Structure formats: structure tokens, C-alpha cells
């Protein structure tokens, strides 16, 4: 099981951040969890700019949970940017959004999302999702050694 790979949560809603952190913890996920609050912040983090220059403190994540509706830069723009960076090729991007619009879904996959999940409404469902995520992505999925 991968415990060393960091998880980056790109989410501007602090309630969602709280509930997600809680669900991941309750699911037994011990990987480092880092949060960026908007699209530009996410880009700065991933490119190691400014306050994120220290890679020991802010490592390149193995997995990114990406909200679509973000301030400054749209989630889909962040996704497109990630897929244009050679050093981020193997990063798993899971779109985690409240939108189940077919256009968002289609565009996310077109831009190279690995998975698309609509935010579950209840704590129980969120916990179920976190457990399933842990079971699949952290226990079965193989990551490139450099990324992990």
C-alpha cells in the first residue's frame, strides 16, 4: 500500500475541505494531505513557485483531488495545465465536483482526468467513497516510483 505519496486537495470550500479530511482520516488514509484554495494556488504548488519552493515540505503529489469550480483559475484549466507538464504526467487526477453536467464530464475526460466523482451528499457516502478510493488507488494502483 502506498502511504508515502502525497495527496493534493484543490478545493476552495472549507466545509468540503473539512468533510473530506474527516472522511479520509476515518477511512484510515495516512498519506500526507495538502490543500490549495484556488486554481492559481494549485498551479503555484505544482510548479514549486513562491511559498511552495521547498519540495520536502511541499512534494509533488501522487494524487490530486480537483474541484472544478474554483476562484482565479477554473478546475478544467488546472487539469489542462497539469496534462501539459512533462513532470506531472503520471499524477493521478480525480475530479471531485458537485457538477454532474454532461459537458463538464466530457470535457474533464477529454483533458485527461483519471476519474470523475460527484461529491457525495452525506457523510456516510463520503466515507464509502474514501474507503473505495483507498482500497483501489492506494492498495491496487501502481504509481511511477518517482511520483510516489
Amino acid at each position, binding site marked *: 500500500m502506498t502511504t508515502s505519496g502525497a495527496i493534493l486537495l484543490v478545493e476552495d470550500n472549507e466545509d468540503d475541505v473539512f468533510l473530506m479530511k474527516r472522511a479520509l482520516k476515518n477511512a484510515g488514509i495516512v498519506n500526507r494531505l495538502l490543500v490549495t484554495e484556488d486554481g492559481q494556488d494549485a498551479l503555484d504548488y505544482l510548479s514549486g513557485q513562491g511559498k511552495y519552493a521547498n519540495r520536502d515540505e511541499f512534494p509533488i503529489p501522487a494524487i490530486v483531488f480537483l474541484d472544478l469550480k474554483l476562484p482565479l483559475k477554473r478546475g478544467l484549466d488546472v487539469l489542462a495545465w497539469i496534462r501539459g507538464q512533462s513532470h506531472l504526467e503520471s499524477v493521478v487526477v480525480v475530479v471531485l465536483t458537485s457538477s454532474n453536467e454532461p459537458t463538464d464530464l466530457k470535457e474533464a475526460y477529454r483533458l485527461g482526468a483519471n476519474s470523475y466523482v460527484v461529491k457525495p451528499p452525506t*457523510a456516510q457516502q463520503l466515507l464509502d467513497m474514501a474507503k473505495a478510493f483507498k482500497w483501489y488507488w492506494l492498495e491496487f494502483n501502481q504509481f511511477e516510483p518517482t511520483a510516489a
Partner: protein
Amino acid sequence: MVGNLKDNWREEKNRPSGADRRFRAVFNQASVGMAIAGLDGRIEEVNEKFADVIGFTPEELVGKTFADFTHPEDIDRTEKMVRELLEGRLNDYSLEKRYLQKNGETIWSLTSVTLLKDSTGRPEGFFAVVEDISERKKGEQNRLHLAAVVESSDDAIISMGLNTIIKSWNRGAQRMFGYSEEEAVGRSIQMLIPPESGDEEPIILARLLAGERIDHYETIRVAKNGRRINVSLTISTVRDLTGRIVGASKILRDITDKKRAEEALRHAQDELRQHAEKLEEQVAERTLRLRETIQELEAFSYSVSHDMRSPLRAMQGYSDALIEEYGTKLDETGQEYLKRIRRSAARMDLLIQDVLAYSRVAKGDTELTPVDVENVIRDVIQNYPGLQRENVTIKVAGPFPKVLAHEAYLTQIVSNLLSNAVKFVEPGKKPELEIRAEPEGEMVRLIFSDNGIGIAPEHHNQIFQIFGRVYSEKKFEGTGIGLAIVKKAAERMGGTVAVESQLGQGAKFHVLLRRATR
């Protein structure tokens, strides 16, 4: 010499002299009719030609008077002239008069009569020369007839010489142009041509002279008072007896009214076209505005799905967290309040999702492809927990012909109908569902039957409307949008939906969709 004709005649009969013989020859062979009559008017002698003209034999004529075969209407005129002769006021007269032939026909003649006198100067008889002028008279009559036709015509009929000088001018021309015959005849036809239309008359004449045929054309002429008149003009050549072109005749018809009507029609057509164009512009403009509105609505529903659901998620999430982590510190009432907050948030989320589903179906794309209905039904049964409860019986009674559908819409229809069927059941009763299909021409009828509480006929329309709930939320939970989505989805796929039900006797929902040909 003529005065002694009768004497000579008589003498000549007994002792013919050379001169008399020659006279007799002339008398007999003349190309005009000749007759000699006594003072009492009785005919004594006629030549062959006379008999010919009058239509009797010479023998029949001798002894008759002129009055016997003169046309009754001409007798008075004739007798008046004869009196003039006898009273010595005239030596001879000429009269155009009619005779009645033996066969009853009337002929016109020019009759010239000379009073015959003896050697002492006393009248002793009449010598008449009769010429048949019936043909000439007929021609004259025709001419008069034609002239009357020309004169009475409403059209202007004008003739002119090659020098464009007007030779004749009928009353129609006078009425149309305002010039009297006296004013017009002798002047050039140019006076009728408006200055702005140039020198067209000589050009037309030249074309006529060159042998070109000009049927009729429409042009503008000017009246004496300056008024412009739209005319249809027919022009043809006038030839003399030798066939030489000596002028032209023209018939002009006033078509101002017709032109005005045409102009009005054209104007009306123009206006109509302008209206149509304006209408199209308006339609285009409104379509654009509508599209903008739709885009705004889409942006709105996008925003609803993101922003409005997010606080609900927080409400649910924190309520859950509160129950899980602090539930033991609350008494039963406190926990119940929390659960109510949670349920309300869940219901609000459901409402938003259904409204979004409805708007997606209402505005979404409708590309139809052949869809396997049975697969869709089995997927829905598998994915909806409520349909897998062990007390629920669902009979999928195939075969199902493929339908032309949008798979997501069809899934929406099937899941909404099936979840309604298991929901609206008397408490304690086992839901029994059946789905089957019947081909119907180019359509396929999908029938969803259940053993539920049924719907009263007066509510059949209401249930397909948004929020058209028939039962209270307390009794059967739901948003009241499900069947509206079913109806909209069926319609977007070119189909229909209907219900067949009585209260307490279950329900049958009929969904009619187009059949896929491949």
C-alpha cells in the same frame, strides 16, 4: 339635238338614215340602261341594259311607268323632279334612287332624265339613262359604318402621313387628349409626345417603313392640359391603291387605371416583402435573445448545481459528523432535531437534482440512436436499490424491439416509472411490476403495469405536471417532478406518455417511442 331625238327616232324607224342607224347601235349596246317614255310616263322603248338593271324583260317594261318599279320611298322625290322638268324649271336632272327588281331586290341607280321636245319646243317625252350604282352605294355604306365605328370607339384612333402630320382624329382621341378634330388635324403627332420621352415617333415610323411589325407597346402620351396618360399603342401602316405606304394609323388605349392598379399591386407586394423581411429580422433578433436567455439559464442551472448544493452538502455532512461524534451527548429529542435538519437538507438536494434533471431533458441534445430497451431496464433494476428489495417482483416480459432513443432519457423514464411503481403501494402490500412491449406501426408501446394505489382519472393530467403531486409528502415522499421528466423525455424523443388507471386498481403507464429500423 337631244330635243329632236324622239322625232328622229320615229322617223328613223320608218326611213333609217345613216346617223340614226349609228344612234340605234349605241342605244342597243350601251353599258348604261336607256329608256324613252311618253309624257304620261309610260315606257315606249328600253335597251337591253335597262331591262337588265331593272330586272325585267324589255317586253315586260314597255307600257309600264317608272313609278311601277321605283322604290316606294323614292317616288315622291322622283315626281318632284319630273314636275320641275315639265314646268320648265329644269332641262334635265340626275337622281340617286332605288328601283325594285322583279325578284323583289332593291338596287341603287343614278338616273339621269332629259325632257324631249318636238321641233316647236313642246315637251313630248322623257329620255332616261340609268346606271347601276349598287356596288358604289354598298361601299359608301361600309365606309359610313366603319367611320361610325371609329367615331364611337373609346380608343383614340388617329391616322397620319409619313411627315407625322395628323390626318384624322376621332372622338375617342378628342376625349383622351382634349384637342378637337379641328385643332388636331394638320398638326404633327409630336404634340402628343411628352418632351421627356424624346423623339420616339420618327423612330417608330422608320421601323414601320423598314417593314418591321409593331404589335403594340406601352408608353406615355401627353394631353392638351399637360396630363400624362399611360397608353397601350397599336400602330399599322396605311397604303394607297398601289400598295405604297403613305402613312400610319394608330390606336391608343388609356391604360392609366390599369397602370395605377399595377402600381398599387407592386406597392402592396413591396410592402408585403418589407414586412416579411422585417418579420424575419425580428425572428432572428428574438431567436438570438432567446438563445442568450437559454445560455443564461444554462449558466444559472450550472451555478445551481454547484453553489446551491454545496451548503446542503455541508449541512448534511456536519449533521452526520455531529450525530456520529457527539450523538451520545445529546438526548433523544436533540438527536431527532438533528435528523430532521439532515432529512430536510437531503430533500432539498433531491429537489435541486430533479429540477436540474428536468431542465437537462428539456434543453439537452436529442440525437436519437437505436437503443436496446431490455438492457436499459435491467441496468435500472440493478442500479436502484429500491428495486432490488426482496419483496419486489419485477417481470420483464420481452421481447423488446429496439427503439430510437436517447439512452440517458430512456434511462430517466424507466427509472422514474419503476421507482414510482414500488413507492406508491399500500403499506404492507408486495409491489408487483410488469414491463412489456407492443409494436405499433412505426412505434413501440412500452407498458409499465403495477399493483399500486392507482390514480383517479381526474388526476391523470395533473401528475405529468411539474410539482403536480397528488399525495402529501408525508404519505409518499418525492419531489413531484419525476413524471414531468418522463413526459418531457418522451416528447423530446418524438414519443408520448399516457396513464391508464383507476383509484385502488394499480396503474399502467404507456410510453410510445419510435421503433428503430435497424
